[in-house]
């Protein structure tokens, strides 16, 4: 497709389980971002990829959160031992980031994965 694709669109799981969220960016976009949207905290940055490397992981809230990107394309965000406070919408975005210190390329967002922890 032409846009950023995220799967699943909804995920309900029990506290303590691990979850994997997938993001398929727009073809040719080298930069990929994960954000979290929750009622109390608004939209928060989690991690940034340039190609397969992650120069900025400063937004990951704990060591239970990790992410990887393979082949410069698909990215997976993994949350281990989920807690109720992890319930949120996880948004992925991609752009033509060129690896400069900062990028003015607009970020294009997927529809997100709504994660609910019971």
């Amino acid at each position, binding site marked *: 497709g032409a846009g950023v694709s995220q799967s699943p669109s909804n995920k309900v799981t029990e506290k303590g389980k691990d979850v994997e969220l997938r993001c398929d960016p727009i073809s040719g976009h080298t930069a990929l971002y994960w954000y979290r949207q929750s009622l109390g905290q*608004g939209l928060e940055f989690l991690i940034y990829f340039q190609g397969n490397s992650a120069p900025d992981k400063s937004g990951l809230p704990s060591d239970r959160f990790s992410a990887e990107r393979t082949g410069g394309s698909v990215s997976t965000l993994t949350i281990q031992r989920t807690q109720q406070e992890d319930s949120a919408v996880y948004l992925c975005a991609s752009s033509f980031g060129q690896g400069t210190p900062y990028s003015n390329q607009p970020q294009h967002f997927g529809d997100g994965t709504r994660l609910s922890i019971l």
Partner: protein
Amino acid sequence: AQSVTQPDIHITVSEGASLELRCNYSYGATPYLFWYVQSPGQGLQLLLKYFSGDTLVQGIKGFEAEFKRSQSSFNLRKPSVHWSDAAEYFCAVVSLYNQGGKLIFGQGTELSVKP
């Protein structure tokens, strides 16, 4: 630290009326600014962006925004609101303190449109 403030959490306007959504940012130099819109259950769609040059920028769906350095503001406007404009609107600035251009968002303004 950079921050973005959207003072209005919720605004209601009548269809056909004009709209202005406020956004203030804190940053010492000229920032890169964006407005995004989010409809329920969907991701964020870019409305417009400001990098430099003309301080009045035009976007999609009839929206425009004006950058005012003296007021540290980047307010979004539309002359005549349509019912389909009901959504949540986010102002954002690119963080210049980390590589990669992550976005710092305001808390959002929810727009309701009365018939």
